[in-house]
């Protein structure tokens, strides 16, 4: 079995759920090893990587300088010289790291993948494109493959036999890059599950008129994250991190609830691959209804409180 390296994503020192999804996918492609770039992991995090099958955790010690894509790619390259396949979570930054690594190694790259499998010794990936109206299967013809996989497209499952998760330190000198990070202003971590990873997303658009009280309440009841349309973030009603769409966050939750969102193609491109889609909009002609499994033409102020009350009642009963 060939080595499949998985780039670990962390948040406040903890491994993220999409990393476990990537490890689960990697187990179907070969023998997974995890690559950790940054300050050394806590033993608990090592153990968690082992649970999802990592045989080794290769640590490349690095600081904020590894935030520069060229430096991150060099660190990842040093730790994955024996890997036929490198799997990572599809984020804007990782797409840049994947590109740099591919140029260094000759690997073929697919980003935004919704899955991958080995076919006749080649990695083939699945993607949805054109606002999730088409399915595409791509073969990576090059000998080495890099796959950046979207969160929520593979179910994270612990390995039948846990991996050893042996810590191996990789001594890599990060290259001097032209780019220098002058300042880093941390964005406060969202409360609850991050948008891209949430099993349920409740989004509000122009129809909220800027009041997210009911949207947040429904998201809380359903255990989901709060999203928004471009209209709403442009109005300054909610921060850009909440924007669902082609240039914001792409989400594929089991349930997507669009509240007062018309459903312009830019928005649909970021959510159309979701499991079940529910829409509430006052405009019966809103394009969002074309892709909604359950649509309500009505006022958010009437519909949402009634739905929330009914869910509470159901749970109490």
């Amino acid at each position, binding site marked *: 079995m060939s080595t499949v390296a998985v780039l670990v994503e962390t948040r406040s020192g903890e491994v993220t759920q999409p990393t476990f999804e990537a490890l689960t996918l990697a187990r179907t492609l070969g023998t997974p090893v995890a690559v950790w770039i940054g300050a050394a992991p806590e033993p608990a995090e090592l153990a968690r990587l082992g649970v999802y099958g990592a045989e080794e955790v290769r640590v490349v010690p690095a600081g904020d300088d590894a935030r520069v894509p060229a430096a991150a790619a060099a660190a990842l390259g040093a730790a994955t010289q024996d890997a036929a396949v490198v799997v990572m979570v599809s*984020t*804007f930054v990782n797409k840049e790291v994947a590109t740099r690594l591919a140029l260094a190694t000759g690997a073929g790259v697919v980003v935004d993948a919704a899955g991958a499998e080995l076919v006749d010794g080649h990695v083939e990936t699945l993607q949805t494109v054109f606002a999730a109206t*088409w399915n*595409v299967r791509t073969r990576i013809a*090059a000998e080495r493959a890099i796959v950046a996989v979207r969160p929520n497209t593979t179910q994270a499952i612990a390995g039948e036999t846990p991996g050893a998760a042996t810590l191996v330190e990789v001594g890599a000198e990060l290259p001097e890059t032209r*780019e*220098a990070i002058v300042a880093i202003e941390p964005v406060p971590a969202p409360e609850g599950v991050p948008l891209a990873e949430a099993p349920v997303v409740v989004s509000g658009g122009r129809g909220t008129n800027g009041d997210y009280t009911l949207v947040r309440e429904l998201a809380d009841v359903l255990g989901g994250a709060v999203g928004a349309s471009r209209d709403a973030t442009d109005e300054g009603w909610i921060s*850009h991190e909440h924007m669902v769409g082609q240039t914001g966050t792409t989400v594929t939750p089991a349930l997507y609830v669009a509240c007062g969102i018309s459903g312009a193609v830019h928005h649909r491109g970021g959510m159309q691959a979701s499991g079940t889609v529910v829409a509430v909009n006052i405009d019966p002609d809103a394009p969002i209804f074309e892709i909604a499994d359950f649509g309500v033409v009505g006022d958010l102020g*009437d519909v949402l409180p009634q739905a929330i009350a009914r869910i509470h009642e159901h749970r109490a009963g």
Partner: protein
Amino acid sequence: MRILVTVKFVPDLQSQRSFTEGAVTRTGDDGTMNELDENAVEAALQLKEAAGEGEVYALTVGGDDAVAAVRKALQLGVDHAIHVSDAAIAGSDVFGTAKVIAAAVRKVHDEAPLDLVVTGMAALDGLTSMLPTALAAELDWSQLTLASGLTVEDGAATIVRHLPDAHETVAAPLPAVVSVTDEANKPRYPNFKLIMAARSKPVTTWTLADLGIPAEAVGAGAARTVVVDASPRPPRENRVKVTDTGDAGTQLADFLIERGLA
């Protein structure tokens, strides 16, 4: 300030987009300049205007129809348009495309040095966002990608990069490849005078031979990835749409409960 902007010819978002033989169908009828490239053109024009001097080039790669992308850039006010077209480019992956664009950038740069290449954050057909990085690496220029803000002074460019965990300020010496997001600016509309002037402006056309690139270095044969299947996703079935007459909220909740989602 000398700036080159890359623009891409893509199917209109509102059109029925499709695949033909493993590649995105691109025709003159429903194609247009990638919307996110308008932010790149705007960023370049603003920098030139602020500097009070300079030249802006728009460059596109693609078949005959792709010239529409640079024509649009001329309407917005760029000074020069270049169209790289060669049958051997068809089927290139991002690395082949980056090789072609890098050669064209070098050709312009050799005539008189460029300060910046500015691109959009993604093309709204493929949405991979890989080209700006591949181009910077191919040129061995500074890479300043996903800029929500951009300033250029004293031979260096500084950008603000909005990432999910942090807002980074990144600086690098010129020349640099900068990709700008749709937060970076508000693109202008072409005015009548520019639309008229754009009609008569010449578009320079280059082939692979003009760029010194052998045909086998790009195109489908050199691509590291191949689309083996593309098919439209079936539409959602059994959709329900109700108009609220007093109990639609309850119906909505019951739908979620039935599906085990609430």
